[in-house]
């Protein structure tokens, strides 16, 4: 066991865990967060995605030992049901999910894309989302929600 310091959604936590523990286990078990999810544990589906330094990172295969001192944003760090982030609001407005289990990975991957590429083409959206799985097949609405957010993104307007 070793102590690691993580800044998650703006709050600093010290966790005492096995250094090989994947970040996902720390977030969902030690910090009781509900956003990042275990889908496969193999970095194949995206359900565990978090944002670190603007990148979409798959927390199920990222050992916590490689992240000491990192700042991590999870789905709940973007907004709340009362005050959702505009990207989350786009998903609510478009009703862009069914069971919703994949949606953490969908939104966190899309967030990293639009932060990096404020005015993405459909091809860029598709490429960024290529390795994210939605098993209920809400593809159509998911892309509509991402487009809706990208088009209303203030960064885009100034770009």
């Amino acid at each position, binding site marked *: 066991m070793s102590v690691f310091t993580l800044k998650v959604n703006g709050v600093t936590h010290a966790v005492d865990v096995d250094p090989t523990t994947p970040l996902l286990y720390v977030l969902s078990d030690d910090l009781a967060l*509900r956003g990042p999810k275990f889908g496969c544990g193999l970095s194949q589906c995206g359900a565990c995605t978090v944002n670190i330094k603007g990148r979409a990172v798959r927390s199920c295969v990222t050992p916590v030992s490689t992240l000491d001192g990192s700042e991590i944003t999870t789905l709940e760090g973007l907004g709340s049901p009362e005050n959702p982030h505009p990207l989350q609001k786009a998903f609510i407005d478009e009703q862009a999910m069914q069971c919703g289990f994949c949606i953490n990975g969908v939104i966190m991957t899309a967030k990293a894309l639009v932060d990096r590429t404020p005015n993405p083409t459909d091809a860029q959206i598709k490429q960024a989302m290529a390795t994210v799985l939605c098993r209920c097949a809400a*593809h159509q609405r998911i892309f509509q929600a991402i487009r809706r957010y990208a088009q209303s993104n203030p960064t885009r307007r100034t770009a």
Partner: protein
Amino acid sequence: MTRPATTTLSADARAALATAGFSRRDFLKRSGALIVTFSAAGVASEFGLAPGLVSAQGINGNPSTELDSWIAIAADGRVTAYTGKCEFGQGLFTAQTQLIAEELSVPLDRVTLVQCDTALTPDQGTTSGAQSHPANFNTANLALAGATAREALVRLAATRLGVPAGQLTARDGAVSVTGDPTRGVSYGDLVGGKKFEVRLDRNAKRKHPSTWTVLGTPVKRLDIPALATGRFEFVHNVRVPGMLHGRVVRPPSVGANLVSVDESSVRGMPGLVKVVVKKNFIGVVAEKPWQAVQAAAKLKVSWSAGSGLPARRTFHDHMRQSPVRDGFTVNSGDVDARLASAARVVKATYLYPYQMHASIATACAVADVQGEKVTVWSASQAVHPLRNTTAMLLGIPPAGVRIIFTMGPGCYGVNGADTVSYDAALMSQAVGKPVRVQLMRKDEMAWENYGLAFVVDQRVALDAEGTIVAWDYEGWSPTRGGRPGGNAPGNVVTGYLAGFAPQAFTPRTPAPPPQGGFDNGSNTAPSYVTGCVGTECGGCGVVKSERVLNHTVESPFFTGPLRSPARLQNTFAHECFMDEIAASLKADPVEYRLRHLRDPRLRTVLAAAAKAAAWDTRPSPRPAARRTGVVRGRGVACVLYEGDNGYCANVTELEVNQDTGVISVKRCVVAMDSGPISNPDGLRNQVEGGTLQGVSRTLLEEVTWDANRVTSVDWRSYRPLYLGADVPVVESVLINQTDVAAMGAGETAVTVAAAAIGNAFFDATGVRLREIPFTPERVKAALQQRQS
């Protein structure tokens, strides 16, 4: 609404557990004042409940005279409704909340819906088979309870206001004099501090859909804000004090038996609590989840060799050669004679693979077993049946077992939710503490209850005009286990490993004559036959000479319902075959179908899809198509789902790259008639998701195995439609029928997708694909045959 109801439910449920034991009546004493109830005794079938399940509940210590509550209205005017049909991402939680708000004339935010908790909600069997709308949205069950409650409140108001009930209107949580809203009384005031117990009134009158203001409107899903912001409590997020974490160790091969477990291989690992062994079941319990994962991976276990598996390449032939259990859906007795005297006979064989539910989340459950008192948080579709089988598994009476539904991922049928509930219960029983178990990806995918493989032989007799005069269907499909139901824990892997046998397979041939009416619940019969059994004819079509014979064979793998079970497979075979017949006659596929259909609603959805898609009326294949490069085609398919539960037609347009063998589906126009529409946007979401999942199953999905074990155990070896895939635009055409019964809609659209794609492929290329999935390799092989 800021917190999802499942969260509220868990908190309530815990409070109820702590203060009121297991009785739902005790719970209601605290929360309700006007309560609509029914007695389970004698009314099970009348109100559309599964009688076997209700009686099973009675037998196992839950007195059948007990009153189950449907709706409670509190003194503050809040409405709590109890339902045995639950949310799996299909939007049912919101639709049922709309239903209650509508029937009770209260604002949506005044309704709390409690779903699927054996201590609180009525036993409505399993949430499956697109049966929730038929069960709860017509003139029984939840809808009837709503109407009963509203009428009871109006009667109370009539007394209070001294005005005849006929002159009163219920609106916005109050009853007032029609035309004079100033003379009224709120529900809260009517109920006051008193207790009213109202029996479910089968004559209570539902509101007509033409008067709906909440139901029938595109109310946004109540759970989506919490889902989109990471606040929603899935079963994976349930945390109880003192909870430990378990992982399973499954056998390496199908049929392998445990020889020995070397506990010294994990001794001293940090956090390890116990290695749990029961016959062939092995679980590892630790303080933290990652510790359990590591210990399960490190545990040395010796297994016997497996029983071996039939070769995958020839599995469809293997089914034909296996012992069979036979059944007729219909048999007019004259099919052989008609075939012998036909102007022409057309025949073809269709093949379908095993497929998986392959939920996005691996299954998870939390169980707390304290002697004979058990609580399980489970994403099962069947909480009441699971209560019984969990008790069987643990060797305790069911009376002390409580199953609390907490949402899991979209399950599409019997995924791992039941089996992982058993895993958690066995481990918790062994350690005496609450245990949370989540399966690893391979544990789930290698041991699922797979959707059915199929072989279908089709033959028709045509007369000189090209009209079908006889239809002969013969199909083979495998079975092993299935839903555990109320008494068969061995129907899923954990129960089986722990020593329970799957439901026995008993060969039976020849099939007895069909009886008890035409039951096309598996869509074994095509839409084009009359479906006459005895004097009743329940089919959608005109073909009178009809024989539909199904052979069930023993499966090497567990099987179970997967979204549109058997119906998707059969509809693929029927609707592609219908297309083949039309093509052989140079007839337009829509017109040729209409020639053989008499059901007006099926004709209407077919025509509606064709119209919306601007159907190009002509025979298939498309004339003068090139034999290289990209070609385009269109195809159609239609069905009456389960023979009585939702009409659907799909017109698909696609492109085929004949050089790479890749099919790219471009557009699906899907017309749907499932009766009065509860929530048009929710229905569209189901049509879109069902259609795209159908594309995934048609083009990509297949369970694979070697001589001993399943080899499709992750998302590389079982690869569904990712977000990066080419997906079609899905356009839904919703036909709102307000004067008929509500039907299901969750499994309808997926049912027609495969055939529409197969038919569009034929239209584009002139080549018929008869085996799912339509992989590039299979496409190229088929195209090569054409060229030779």
